[in-house]
């Protein structure tokens, strides 16, 4: 039972933290909860489908189907996070400084929210399909259904708790800093996911690793420690990255940062901070 709890917690942690950050980043958008819930439900349904098709997916693409699927899911999530950040950098200030503009932006905001739903669905899909597969596996072993389910529920509750903690913590950030903080977090999340995407493409021998590892900080901060895990989830920390992973990571940071700079709202562009 404890085994199920720990694994489900570990798998749900990443998705829960991401949902927490994205929910906070989208807090000014109308009908946010409906889209968040839609993304979660779609992700869970997709997880069950992927878990059932796991054998077939694994054998696709010459045994590299799983790597391809992971890379595609991560790539789509990175694209949507990038778009969210760039869109937000244009509208965030107007939205907090001028309530009426929120109404004006609803049409555009709905499009933005569908991007957010996709990000959430992708995160739930990736972590969820592994979890479902693992729980199926445990049930077919000697473990009783009740034990596995209660363990899984415990782990899931802990994961969701951490996600809520992240969300509540972010809401306490002063409004003046709020969009900067959430934009920074989303930027790091997206870069970390791009790095992971590179790792799957390397694992499947689709792209070269180049220098491997580029550096090794595992003696300082191991990936399995609590802080290492948190940094891995939040900022894509990897104690032994290959050069290709670093290129994907830094490339994503640069692309999103340039995108955000180019579409800045006029108030920000003039260097005069909007009244908050």
């Amino acid at each position, binding site marked *: 039972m404890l085994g199920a709890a720990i694994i489900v917690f570990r798998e749900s942690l990443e998705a829960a933290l991401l949902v927490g950050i994205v929910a906070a980043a989208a807090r000014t958008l109308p009908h946010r909860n409906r889209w968040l819930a839609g993304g979660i439900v779609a992700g869970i349904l997709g997880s069950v489908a992927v878990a059932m098709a796991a*054998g077939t997916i694994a*054998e696709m693409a010459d045994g590299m189907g799983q790597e391809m699927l992971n890379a595609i899911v991560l790539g789509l999530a990175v694209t949507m996070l990038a778009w969210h950040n760039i869109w937000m950098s244009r509208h965030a200030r107007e939205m907090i400084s001028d309530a009426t503009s929120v109404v004006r932006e609803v049409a555009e905001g709905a499009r933005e929210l569908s991007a957010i739903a996709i990000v959430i669905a992708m995160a739930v899909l990736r972590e969820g399909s592994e979890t479902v597969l693992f729980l199926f*596996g*445990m049930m077919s072993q000697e473990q009783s259904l009740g034990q596995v389910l209660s363990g899984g529920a415990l782990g899931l509750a802990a994961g969701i708790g951490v996600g809520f903690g992240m969300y509540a913590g972010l809401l306490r950030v002063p409004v003046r800093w709020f969009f900067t903080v959430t934009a920074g977090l989303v930027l790091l999340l997206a870069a970390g996911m791009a790095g992971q995407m590179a790792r799957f493409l390397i694992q499947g*021998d689709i792209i070269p690793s180049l220098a*491997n*590892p580029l550096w090794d900080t595992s003696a300082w901060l191991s990936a399995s420690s609590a802080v290492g895990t948190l940094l891995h989830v939040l900022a894509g920390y*990897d104690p032994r990255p290959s050069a290709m992973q670093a290129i994907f990571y830094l490339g994503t940071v640069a692309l999103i940062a340039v995108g955000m700079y180019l579409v800045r709202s006029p108030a920000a562009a003039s260097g005069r901070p909007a009244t908050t």
Partner: protein
Amino acid sequence: MKRLILALLCLPAIALAAPPEVQLVIKDHRFQPEEVRVPAGQKIKLVIQNQDSTPEEFESHELNREKVIPGGTTANVFIGPLNPGKYPFFGEFNEKTARGVVIAE
């Protein structure tokens, strides 16, 4: 310097040759063999056959790899090129019993 040039000249040859394959079997939530020796400095293809009916996740922080292997299927995981050293791996779904190590030399 001469050695470096020589090494660079050898690189394309290494890249073109198919990576050596290493076979691993998962049975009763254990890896067999639990210790695999591979040459350092080149890419290796791990071919992991899961003979159990339950899925397993091959995972290694040291090798920077993770892959779910459904019950009764075979998966490939490319690793390396590795520096000489020990690289532990484990089955995330059965961490107590499924453990092993890749030794690059």
